[in-house]
């Protein structure tokens, strides 16, 4: 249905692209069409943009010259015009010249590039350090020195709309695939050090407006920095193939004034405390299932699928699986969610006892799994103690 709507714009945009191709003017390129690299919101991103434009201009000019000469000769030196071919076959001076000129051009591009790179490399004197860890498929952020850890999953409406043939219009979804449940909140105007690493496979942390991306490599840490000059919400996503959820690992950075940032840190500390505080309260089946469904969508669905069938040969089905059905397997089931197994990640750190209790209950009482088993937070507490 939105197809039609696009078709209306389509011809116009095609013409636009073609003309942009021929007139490569930076103004057109930079319009809100998303044709060109963003100038971003940091000093570095601005420099990167300038370096990009310089190179683009240089190669465009070279291209116009080379192709110009070529077309000139295509038009004038054609047999149908009755020309006789020349016989010349080399000229040392010309060949030396067109070896030297590109060399000089390259050197003059390499010099500013070297300077820019040196500036990007300098992470000293930063005031805040955040460690970003890539998981299949979410990000974890540790505010070093603040004792704040948050997990950032793709927002639930994007998860739903992105299921195959979900019937939900991506256009009607808020920032489809580029929205998270929790944003990384950072203060503006401060030098922030961002460490990247990963838990399972290689990911890459990328927010275009900051002007760089960096791989997150399991077992190693990469050091980066940024100074965000403008308040706002900046979106990016994982930029290194990390398995089937690679397209579903958005990053949202919220840049706020420093005051707001401090307040947010304090608030988050409190919230985390109450969230992680294990409740000795007992929940009803309906409460657990309702909560569990949300946890499932955010954490399990990517592998085990909405229908609990998994993907044959890669991720096992939990619908009908003995681990999720037999009563004697309840402890093993809880254990596997807390500690992971093989490719399945450990969720013990990122999910609270209540979350784990509810997702296990949900899994055991959904699809064909009709066990009636109820798992309470205290069961999870017991499992963690072992």
């Amino acid at each position, binding site marked *: 249905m939105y197809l039609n709507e696009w078709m209306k714009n389509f011809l116009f945009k095609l013409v636009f692209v073609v003309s942009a191709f021929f007139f490569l003017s930076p103004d057109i390129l930079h319009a809100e069409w998303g044709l060109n690299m963003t100038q971003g919101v940091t000093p570095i991103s601005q420099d990167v943009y300038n370096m990009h434009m310089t190179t683009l201009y240089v190669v465009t000019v070279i291209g116009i010259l080379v192709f110009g000469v070529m077309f000139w000769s295509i038009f004038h030196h054609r047999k149908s015009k009755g020309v006789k071919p020349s016989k010349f076959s080399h000229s040392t001076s010309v060949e030396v010249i067109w070896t030297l000129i590109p060399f000089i051009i390259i050197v003059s591009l390499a010099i500013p590039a070297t300077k820019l790179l040196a500036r990007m490399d300098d992470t000293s004197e930063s005031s805040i350090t955040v*460690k970003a860890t890539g998981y299949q498929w979410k990000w974890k952020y540790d505010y070093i020195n603040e004792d704040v850890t948050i997990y950032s999953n793709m927002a639930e409406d994007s998860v739903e709309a992105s299921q195959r043939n979900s019937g939900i219009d991506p256009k009607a979804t808020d920032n489809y695939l580029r929205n998270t449940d929790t944003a990384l909140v950072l203060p503006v105007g401060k030098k922030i050090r961002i*460490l990247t*690493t990963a838990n399972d496979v290689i990911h890459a942390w990328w927010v275009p407006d900051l002007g760089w991306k960096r791989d997150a490599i399991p*077992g*190693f*840490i*990469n*050091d980066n920095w940024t100074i965000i000059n403008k308040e706002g919400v900046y979106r990016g996503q994982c930029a290194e193939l990390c398995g089937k959820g690679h397209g579903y690992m958005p990053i949202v950075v919220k840049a706020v004034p420093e005051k707001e940032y401090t307040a947010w840190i304090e608030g988050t500390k409190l919230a985390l405390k109450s969230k992680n505080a294990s409740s000795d309260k007992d929940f009803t089946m309906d409460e657990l299932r309702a909560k569990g469904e949300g946890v499932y969508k955010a954490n399990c669905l990517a592998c085990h699928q909405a229908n609990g069938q998994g993907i044959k040969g890669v991720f096992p089905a939990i619908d009908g699986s003995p681990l999720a059905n037999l009563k004697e397997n309840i402890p093993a089931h809880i254990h596997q969610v807390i500690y992971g197994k093989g490719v399945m990640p450990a969720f013990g750190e990122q999910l609270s006892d209540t979350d784990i209790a509810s997702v296990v209950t949900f899994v055991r009482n959904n699809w064909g799994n009709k066990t009636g088993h109820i798992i309470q937070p205290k069961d999870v507490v017991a499992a963690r103690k072992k």
Partner: protein
Amino acid sequence: MVSKDIYFIPEPSKWPIVASLALFTTFIGGAMLLNQSSNGKYVLILGAMGIIYMFAGWFSSVISESLSGSYNRQVDVSFRMGMGWFIFSEVMFFAAFFGALFYARVLSVPWLSGEGHGVATHQFLWPAFKAAWPMSVMPNPASFTAYKDTIPATGIPAINTLLLLTSGVTITFAHWALKKVQRNHLCAWLAATVLLGALFVYLQAGEYHHAYSELNLKLSSGIYGSTFFLLTGFHGFHVTMGAVMILAILFRSLKGHFTKNDHFAFEAVAWYWHFVDVVWLGLFIFVYWL
């Protein structure tokens, strides 16, 4: 049948496609085995038999062509180039593993322990890890086999070095004997070379046994064990192949093959043997000694 000034173009031959099929079967068997399929070993054996059959058949047709004088000087040069560049490709194969060894020693292990580029890595991920080579304590000791000790260069490896160097000399003596048409000497020196090669493999196998059963040094002993076993393992495999090839040459010599001026197969095997020798020197220096 063929005149010497015409470059020998073989008749259509079934061996190339038999070779591809045999390798294909072997690979499937290997893959099945790795995927824990119990029938894998039968397929693997079938493929290996196919490979042996192919080699026997292909080489026997080459040998009979050679004996019947089909190959002129130019064909000989093609064979030489073929063998030379094949050995070069083998050198590059080993280079990948040597590269891994140098990378680990010079870069990744020091980084993990916080040197240079690795400050943050060490600080946040492996605060307890200290670089050392040989590295008996891994960054994450839990998931790898710690070993008691490594194999010192001065023991068996030094003896093995002598053995291989000597075998390089003996095969050269064999070559001289061939050129002087002293067939008895030729066979004797070849036999000596095979024996030295076999002794090398025997001692090496003993070292592996020692490493596994007493030193607890295994493939899974972190990057040290990985590079150690893959480098020496692939080398040992090449020595074995080389020894088999020399054995084949020995049998042909006994049968009276090869003449003073026409013995490409002999030389090819000798080149290969020297290559194996040189790789060992690299191993001895960089794996055992330094």
